[in-house]
């Protein structure tokens, strides 16, 4: 009796600590509401997670006598797995290039989904037969399916981004029908399992979940993948919440639900910024066809290209220059040189600002992260809404590796796939300069009229090289 009551107090204390961990996670997310407290917030979250993990070592499951369980072995395996995980994750996370961030996030998300699915599977195997409430079985199956979809879906997303496979959408006839069929099969089998609690059927559900993840992601184009990752992130969150219901853990429910809700919201905000609906992103195999001439050669319309020296002079004698960064800047890692150019221009008395499109690059806020890395002063960074009114008084718009996000077709061509997406109005500036390597289109695979405009000058080459030449030219001017 006394012992039981002590045990009880311990369990109670542990649950209280878990509540504090949950609060820590909420504070971590709240910290992200401004750049200022964001990093501290993340550290709070990490500390909370650490506390949560540490306190779990006091769980009676690690000590209570169960026939056939040797706690020493289990504990050893646990510590090995954790050490191994840390040993792999830390260097990987430390070394990854900023441009490869989306892949990294995809892989971490996938393993989380896998872990949640494994928890649910093991709990299923432990169910005593015939005595389990239907909703318990449902929680478990939900965790299995959603976790598996998240796992295999993230793996394919990773492969696409890492260019282990083509980034173009993979389509085949009857694709939607097949996907729907798999979905239906899963639903039917889940319903069967609710009644039978049969392990073999659960295994089939598990496999179908993995299959669904793959075929769900295949038709989604490489550049839509970040939106997809955010959605899969939300799936993992829901799978974790489901494990929380199964294990009666408030903490897992809170953490999982927070992520689930935030992922869905973030997905919607991203698709809105891209001017498209979520179903359109998921099911339209966007980018599978190149809709305009573009491509490698096409009909060779005339464009005006300039030398670094000409352009350097143009920039140095302008009053106001807007730098419009895009995906190419990220690929070329040209953010530091871009800042050097801005500094050189500022030194010449030119007013310089960066016009940041919300979905420039391949991740939301991609450009902000890069330019922050290059220590660009905050007051030079302008979000699209603030930048656009200034464009008409800007002398030169210097477009560095951006394309779709300055494509006027979004405003003028109702049939265009990007029609309706808000763009940076570089076309309203006095002159436009494009730094890119070729006439190839951007992510959306469509031609950009602005390239052929008479006030446009192109400077072909890698963005970093071109910028370096421009810095020299400006300093010489």
């Amino acid at each position, binding site marked *: 009796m006394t012992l039981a009551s002590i045990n009880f107090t311990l369990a109670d204390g542990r649950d209280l600590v878990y509540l504090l961990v949950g609060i820590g*996670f909420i504070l971590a*997310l709240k910290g*992200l*509401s*401004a*750049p*200022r407290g*964001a*990093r501290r*917030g993340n550290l709070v*979250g990490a500390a909370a997670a650490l506390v949560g993990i540490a306190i779990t*070592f006091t*769980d009676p*499951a690690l000590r209570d006598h169960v026939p056939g369980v040797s706690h020493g072995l*289990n504990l050893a395996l646990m510590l*090995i*797995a*954790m050490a191994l*995980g840390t040993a792999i*994750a*830390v260097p990987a996370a430390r070394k990854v290039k900023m441009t490869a*961030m989306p892949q*990294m*996030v995809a892989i*971490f*998300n996938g393993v*989380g989904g896998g*872990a*949640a699915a*494994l928890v649910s599977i*093991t709990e299923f*195997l432990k169910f005593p037969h015939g005595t389990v*409430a239907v909703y318990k079985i449902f929680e478990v199956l939900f965790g299995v399916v959603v976790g598996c979809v998240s796992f295999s879906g993230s793996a394919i997303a990773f492969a696409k981004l890492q260019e282990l496979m083509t980034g173009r959408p993979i389509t085949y006839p009857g694709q939607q029908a097949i996907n729907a069929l798999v979905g239906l099969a899963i639903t039917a089998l889940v319903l069967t399992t609710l009644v039978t609690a049969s392990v073999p059927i659960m295994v089939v559900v598990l496999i179908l979940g993995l299959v669904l993840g793959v075929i769900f992601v295949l038709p989604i184009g490489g550049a839509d993948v970040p939106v997809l990752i955010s959605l899969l992130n939300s799936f*993992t*969150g829901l799978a*974790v919440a489901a494990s929380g*219901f199964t294990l009666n*853990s*408030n903490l*897992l*429910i809170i*953490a999982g*639900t*927070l*992520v689930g*809700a*935030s*992922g869905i*919201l973030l997905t919607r*905000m991203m698709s809105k910024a891209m001017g498209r609906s979520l179903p359109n992103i998921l099911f339209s195999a966007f980018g599978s066809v190149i809709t305009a001439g573009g491509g490698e050669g096409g009909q060779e319309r005339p464009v005006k290209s300039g030398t670094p020296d000409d352009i350097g002079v143009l920039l140095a004698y302008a009053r106001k220059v807007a730098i419009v960064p895009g995906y190419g800047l990220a690929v070329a890692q040209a953010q530091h040189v871009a800042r050097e150019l801005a500094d050189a221009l500022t030194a010449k008395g030119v007013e310089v600002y960066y016009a940041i499109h919300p979905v420039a690059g391949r991740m*939301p*806020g*991609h450009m902000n*992260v890069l330019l*922050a*890395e*290059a*220590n*660009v*002063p905050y007051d030079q960074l302008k979000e699209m809404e603030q930048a656009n009114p200034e464009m008409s008084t800007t002398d030169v718009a210097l477009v560095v590796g951006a394309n779709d996000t300055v494509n006027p077709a979004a405003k003028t061509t109702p049939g265009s796939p990007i029609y309706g997406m808000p763009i940076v109005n570089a076309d309203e500036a006095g002159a436009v300069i494009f730094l890119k390597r070729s006439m190839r289109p951007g992510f959306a695979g469509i031609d950009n009229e602005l390239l052929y405009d008479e006030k446009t000058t192109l400077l072909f080459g890698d963005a970093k090289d071109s910028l370096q030449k421009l810095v020299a030219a400006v300093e010489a001017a």
Partner: protein
Amino acid sequence: MTVGIIELLTIFVLAAFVGNEVISKVPSILHTPLMSGSNAIHGIILVGTMVVLADAHGPAELVLGFLAVLLASLNVVGGFVVTDRMLEMFKTKPEARKQGADNRASDSATGDGANPGGKPS
């Protein structure tokens, strides 16, 4: 036991509201860190995998449990480290940053800490 399900549902609903409200205040420049930060948070499934592995018996359960702990550790550790790396770039204060851009040389002592990310200009 079954009384608990309503409490769990209540917690679920409230957490969903909290997530929704908090996230809608995150500015778009922080969306990428938000994605990886929330990714790290669901890594807390590690706690669940630990409990599962703790009383696993038989090779099947042991292997599943081991894998689960491994995957979850990857998620939680990697998630927080990656997020920290991203947010490190946002760390300098606006004021310090502006000054830093203007008179960088004289400023390095007063800035809050070293500046490993940025190259010297």
